[in-house]
């Protein structure tokens, strides 16, 4: 059998639902096992509610040993396992598998240790992101990555997705802030990856499993770095009459040697949507606004804010405001932070895209998105982690209208293709999941996809962990039909087209 067929083949479960429940009942308490449709309904989707599926069973282990036991049962029975944290993911990564077990880690929610001297927190995967910072706050420390869902999302999910946030240009993503994990393989074996030091000899499996979307194993304990809480933070709000000027201001700030704690852009439709919702006081006549946050010691902040304000001015901002106190700083941020719900209030549904592009291509990409609005007859508002090139176009539609839903999906796919064409990626921080699985066929060639499958195979020979997500099979790419084209050559010449 060739390697391609090997990775395309699906292993069939060896047991039926009844037998699977019997085996799982031997390792879990009755209230930790759900199998009636109505009980499992809350698990049918994650934060991407356009994709739903009921699993065969939901397993809710209460400790690490039970996670291992569930994995052993599923491995022996060749049953797929889809791990799930808080279910706030935006790419359908935790969408259940019809023949599989959804492994919910929400009961593993203990903060095991805060070491304020070594500046580390050891926690279980179900602990909420913000709960770590809350627990560290009495020591003047915090956990830096702050995805917008941080009040609800779990650290286990953050590791699975390599989550970012508005401060990651300066403080890094999850991968930069996790030191060690305890990790259960599909065979139920427990491994410790990383350590209490800052690096480890041998292959960097900690980096490999971070962002692997539940395809390689399940974390049962995570040690994160804690940083000293900055003494001061201040925000500059700048309004521009063109997107190009705002884009240039971003380049000028970075080019001047400043790494802001946060640097966010919103276009006019996004500004108008949030102003109706939170009244943050944003200038409504601006084509784009920038929010630039500086944090650190009072001396660092004062120096940086002065330089940032000057650059905004010389880059053509027609209005510049600097937050005078923390209340005003939070008010400036309130609009950006409520962009998604604000858009959700003015239209029935929206898709949030997540491409990342080289920053110098911003004006071109926004122009392309504007043209796609006409093509697909749908509106789009743009919010943008401008400092790191991560774009979140919000495509507005009504899911009750099937034609609109289909156009919105195609609109999203076209935006991702545009991101790839300018040298970017289909996902900066939300993950591929099920949502962007087809676009992976455009971003990667056959050889890269096969290499991913070979790595997956090293961890999970029967492809039981979150099958069908994150890395498409070559068969799926052939059926999708949009091939990665490199120097005029089709990458899948030997595969049949349907």
């Amino acid at each position: 059998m060739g390697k391609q067929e090997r990775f395309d083949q699906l292993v069939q479960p060896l047991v039926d639902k009844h037998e699977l429940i019997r085996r799982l009942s031997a390792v879990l308490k009755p209230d930790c096992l759900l199998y009636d449709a109505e009980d499992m309904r809350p698990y049918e989707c994650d934060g991407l509610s356009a994709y739903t599926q009921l699993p065969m069973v939901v397993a809710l282990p209460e400790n690490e040993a039970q996670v291992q036991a569930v994995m052993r049962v599923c491995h022996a029975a060749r049953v797929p396992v889809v791990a799930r944290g808080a279910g706030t993911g935006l790419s359908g990564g935790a969408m259940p598998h019809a023949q599989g077990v959804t492994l919910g880690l929400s009961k593993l929610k203990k903060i095991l240790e805060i070491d304020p001297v070594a500046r580390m927190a050891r926690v279980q995967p179900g602990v909420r992101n913000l709960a770590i910072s809350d627990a560290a706050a009495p020591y003047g420390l915090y956990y830096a990555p702050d995805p917008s869902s941080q009040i609800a999302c779990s650290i286990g999910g953050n590791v699975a997705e390599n989550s970012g946030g508005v401060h990651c240009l300066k403080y890094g993503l999850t991968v930069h802030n996790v030191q060690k994990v305890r990790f259960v393989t599909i065979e139920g074996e427990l491994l410790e990856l990383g350590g209490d030091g800052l690096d480890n000899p041998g292959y960097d499996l900690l980096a490999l499993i971070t962002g692997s979307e539940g395809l390689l194993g399940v974390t049962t304990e995570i040690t994160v770095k804690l940083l000293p809480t900055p003494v001061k933070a201040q925000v500059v709000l700048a309004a521009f009459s063109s997107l190009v000027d705002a884009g240039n201001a971003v380049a000028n700030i970075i080019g001047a040697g400043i790494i802001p704690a946060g640097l966010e852009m919103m276009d006019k439709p996004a500004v108008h949507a949030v102003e109706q919702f939170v009244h943050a006081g944003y200038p409504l006549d601006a084509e784009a606004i920038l929010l630039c946050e500086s944090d650190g010691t009072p001396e660092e902040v004062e120096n940086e804010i002065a330089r940032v304000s000057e650059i905004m001015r010389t880059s053509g901002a027609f209005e510049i405001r600097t937050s005078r106190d923390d209340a005003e700083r939070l008010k400036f941020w309130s609009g950006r932070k409520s962009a998604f719900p604000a858009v959700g209030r003015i239209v029935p549904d929206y898709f949030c895209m997540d491409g990342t592009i080289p920053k110098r291509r911003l004006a071109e990409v926004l122009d392309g998105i504007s043209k796609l609005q006409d093509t697909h007859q749908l509106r789009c508002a743009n919010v943008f982690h401008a400092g790191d090139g991560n774009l979140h176009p919000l495509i507005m539609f009504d899911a009750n209208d099937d034609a609109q839903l289909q156009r919105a999906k195609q609109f999203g796919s076209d935006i991702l293709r545009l991101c790839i064409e300018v040298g970017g990626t289909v996902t900066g921080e939300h993950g591929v999941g099920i949502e962007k699985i087809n676009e992976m066929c455009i971003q990667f060639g056959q050889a890269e996809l096969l290499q991913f499958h070979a790595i997956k195979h090293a961890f999970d020979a029967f492809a039981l962990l979150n099958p069908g997500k994150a890395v498409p099979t070559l068969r799926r790419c052939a059926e999708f039909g949009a091939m990665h084209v490199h120097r005029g050559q089709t990458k899948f010449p030997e595969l049949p087209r349907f």
Partner: protein
Amino acid sequence: MTDLVSEFSQRVQAAAKQGSALRPRGGGSKDFHACKLGGEPLDVSGYQGIVNYDPTELIITAKAGTPICDIEATLAEGGQMLACEPPRLSAGSTLGGCVAAGWSGPRRAYAGSVRDFVLGTRILNGRGEDLRFGGEVMKNVAGFDLSRLMTGSFGTLGLILEVSLKVLPRPLQELTLRFDLDEAHAIAAMNAWAAQPLPLSGTAWFDNKLYVRLSGPEPAVRAAKEKMGGEPQSDAQALWTSVRDQTLPHFSGTLWRLSIKSTTPALNLPGKSLLEWNGALRWLNSAADATAVHAAARKAGGHALRYRGGDLSQGLFQPDPAMLKLQQRIMAALDPDNVFSPARLHPSL
């Protein structure tokens, strides 16, 4: 494919077919660090040049054979730097070697490691396939992070052809403070300062002196100095270069590198220690028994690496059996015929 890349690819394919081995080699400055130097050298030093650099993107892409010194000179023109401060063990140290080793310098505990700054790679795997992972963007979660997996793999998983790295601006000002402290007090001081919002960018302790580097705008550096005390160090640049490039006498002889919890008390092992990274990195110059060193590192939540000298043939580190098995499977996934640097890290890796 450029001519050189297709030549590399053909050599890899031929080696896979014949069952022979190749050892990717840049400047050769890390040849001392090997369990076994197997395979015929595959000289990558001719494959050099900066492919792309735009200071406003904070990203540089260069070919693997490019000397680190060339990259740093180019970055300096843009007011930027490799904030992980990889050691330049010789003038010929290359980007490929820097990423293959994954070793970082004094700024690592404050700015990040080589692995942290790697954004994308172009590699040849053990079948000679030309593959690209990651790219020239800061945030990218599409596909498994094979770029960071390559970092620190010492050429055992594939041949690194090109690397994209995140770079950072050079600090506006730097000041180094010197404190007369014994090891225990130095460890306590470094960890206490690291828990406070101070503009730290390097710590090194040896010969009962602790050196602390501060980086940032002048007022911020001055305020931190007033808070911390200590004596300004005059030839600070030379001092940090000698730690970073390992030219101090401490780095010769039989040397262990322990990466452990920063608060670990002074090691109860014979020999002399040099500390970095708030105490999370301990360079132990010692003829101590290997079993004792590995045990001490494990007890301190980390790992010991046989860095230089002594018997390296049993492996540079001691993975536990389950971990070794998984690492072997990952190696087989990238290099199924074991073409690349067999047994460089460990008799079976």
